[in-house]
């Protein structure tokens, strides 16, 4: 499937609204400014996934999209391992970064991810009037590519290409660098495109 420039712009705007909501909640939780990159919507051939998502140790909090479309795809909050430790340290009032993850860290990451992703999907639902609900969070601390690959393998539709809505959220004060990635199934992507097209029609 290929997207026109207008479709790409519209999807990018959708990603922008979602990510802005997520950035606001992250900023509130950290009590510190969070910078947000321009959201990108990219089509990635699965054979080239490693050019976008590497094998570095990372924390990934993943959510399955539910709601009107039962298996709508996934949203993933993706942080380097170091950023993940710094974020939980900031929230739990600790300073040691050279330590293994414990249960408290894991539950804090799930919770922060849950709040951010819920805000992201609230934002997109507000714009589209199309509700995508997040499943309970699932956390993996491992190679990022391995985690993404596992999600792609279990997507409902057979695909050779995935669309990634990706926005970088960074907090300079606490040296936290993270990405929020929406990976819709083709069914949800079509639905989003249809709704966006409706919105862009001039009023009769």
């Amino acid at each position, binding site marked *: 499937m290929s997207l026109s420039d207008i479709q790409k712009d519209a999807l990018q705007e959708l990603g922008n609204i979602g990510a802005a909501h997520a950035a606001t909640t992250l900023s509130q939780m950290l009590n510190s400014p969070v910078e947000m990159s321009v959201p990108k919507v990219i089509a990635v051939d699965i*054979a080239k996934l490693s050019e976008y998502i590497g*094998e570095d140790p990372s924390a990934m909090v993943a959510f399955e999209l539910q709601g009107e479309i039962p298996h709508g795809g996934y949203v993933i909050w993706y942080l380097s391992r170091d950023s993940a430790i710094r974020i939980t340290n900031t929230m739990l009032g600790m300073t040691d970064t050279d330590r293994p993850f414990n249960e408290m860290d894991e539950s804090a990451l799930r919770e922060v991810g849950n709040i951010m992703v819920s805000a992201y999907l609230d934002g997109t639902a507000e714009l589209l009037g199309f509700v995508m609900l997040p499943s309970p969070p*699932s956390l*993996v601390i491992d*190679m990022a590519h391995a*985690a993404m690959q*596992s999600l792609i393998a279990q997507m409902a539709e057979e695909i*050779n290409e995935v669309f990634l809505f990706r926005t970088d959220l960074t907090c300079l004060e606490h040296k936290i660098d993270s990405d929020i990635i929406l990976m819709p199934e083709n069914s949800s992507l079509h639905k989003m495109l249809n709704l966006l097209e409706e919105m862009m029609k001039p009023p009769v």
Partner: protein
Amino acid sequence: MIVTTMTDPFVQTDPTAMIGIGEYRVGSFRMASIGLGSCIGLTLFSPEQKVGAMVHIMLPESSGRTDRPGKYADTAIPLLLNELSTLGVRKGSIICKIAGGATMFEAFSASMNIGQRNIEKVKKILAEQNLRLVSEDVGGKMGRSVYFTPQENGKVLVRLANGSSREI
């Protein structure tokens, strides 16, 4: 002064072929697949000819799809055998190793369990083809990167996210 454009033999420019999801390569050069989760890295190696093949399998069954044969266990294995036989490799000499098939998201994949299904399908087809599976590092919850060096007697190295690695 002689200016030469020849490649410096001491600088290895592209020493490793990266094999992405659904891709495969055949040859005697070094090959690698990074970040295997539920996917399987399968290597076939002929000690007689020091030549091998590697594929990055994502799903057990092709269900009739033919566009990317390396993506599925049932189409990938016959494909590699065919490629190796055109290089004159004797089927009986081939040894196989597999790594991968992890379950990383238990909450999502409980009903599907693709990692486990991949392992079972690959093993089943290897057995049907009378191929020798000599070593494996499969299952569990951890992601793996796999490095295959045909020149070093078909050495297969599996590395985990924590940096530890082992030869299989």
